[in-house]
């Protein structure tokens, strides 16, 4: 139990996917211009991560033991098709949820955070529940970083910023400062 909690907190704060591992930067910089969109993107990403964790576990346990060199191709193909399938399922079963996640679902599949999650979980030899908890933590951490940046960017819209620094340059510097703040969490587990 303690181990699972540790995995969760570490994925959310200490080893935040965006701010420490630099995964999923494209949506992080591209979509984070409004709070609502980024919260929805975060929700959808967390969901896809959970699906990915399950897929990765199944693949690792039953298929890839026999052919480790197919890992990358298998992960990509299986994850992408599963996500597409689930997207159709959600569209049929719950249109409200589908609207909330919207067009993000298919786009997320090519997000490097998803593949990164599968690879990290494999490299660390996580079991089924550990994988799920890790995916949940990573998803929440991604959402947290996205929402924080979106909030800061919305504030920045209202202030007068020199034309020279506007755009990606400013977002990167904001992200750098956020990342520095998250480094403070690194000491959280020094005793263990």
């Amino acid at each position: 139990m303690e181990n699972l909690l540790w995995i969760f907190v570490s994925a959310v704060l200490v080893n935040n996917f965006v701010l420490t591992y630099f995964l999923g930067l494209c949506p992080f910089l591209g979509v984070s211009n409004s709070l609502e969109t980024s919260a929805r993107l975060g929700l959808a990403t967390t969901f896809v991560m959970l699906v990915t964790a399950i897929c990765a576990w199944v693949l690792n346990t039953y298929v890839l033991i026999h052919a480790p060199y197919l890992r990358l191709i298998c992960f990509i193909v299986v994850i992408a098709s599963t996500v597409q399938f689930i997207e159709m399922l959600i569209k049929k079963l719950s249109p409200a949820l589908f609207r909330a996640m919207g067009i993000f679902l298919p786009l997320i599949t090519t997000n490097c955070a998803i593949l990164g999650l599968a690879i990290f979980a494999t490299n660390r030899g996580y079991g089924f529940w550990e994988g799920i908890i890790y995916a949940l933590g990573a998803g929440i951490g991604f959402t947290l970083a996205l929402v924080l940046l979106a909030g800061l960017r919305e504030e920045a819209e209202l202030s007068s910023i020199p034309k020279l620094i506007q755009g990606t340059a400013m977002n990167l510097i904001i992200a750098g400062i956020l990342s520095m703040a998250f480094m403070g969490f690194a000491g959280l587990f020094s005793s263990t």
Partner: protein
Amino acid sequence: MKKNESYEEFIKGVWRDNPVFAQVLGMCPMLAVTNSAINAVAMGMATFFVLVGSSFLVSSFRNWIPKQVRISCFIIIIATFVTIADYTLLALVPKVHKELGAFIPLIVANCLILGRQEAFASRYPTRLAVMDAIGMAVGFLVALLSLGAVREILGDGALFGVKLFSENFEPWVIMILPPGGFLTLGVILLFFNWFKFKKDEFLEEVAEAERSGR
């Protein structure tokens, strides 16, 4: 004329449409592995191999790949080349492979590579597609190297592992930690903004002068 065309595609990727500085693509590996110059070079070479190889294959097969499933085909081709690169690096330079870790397989998800297949390689003949891929890959390598060099010099006082400064130099440890990546790239992009700003201003002045001359 033909030679010029290829050259044009090449130089476009290196400078005018530089994948990182002008298009802001491929950010994830860009920031994650540039804490030292040698890692940056290894990453750049791996990306070079994957990009050129998959551009070549995609543009050779562009008339056979059905439109509806093209993205999946591209991804499978790219994933194959990444697997080759992954195992080659593991065999040749195990130490660098260990440091890059999960970021070699993650080349698959580099939007730069898929972007080039979709936007260029699937529409143009092989020769141009390969030139375009080489240009983009060199541009990417230049960007990785400039970021990696700055971070290693400031964060470690060294370049390619060779110490540059005397003992009195206090390394800026923050530069090799994650925040340093964001800050360095932010500042470099700032330079590019400034450069573009000046150029626009200059062009405007020229246009103004021409108009008043008439």
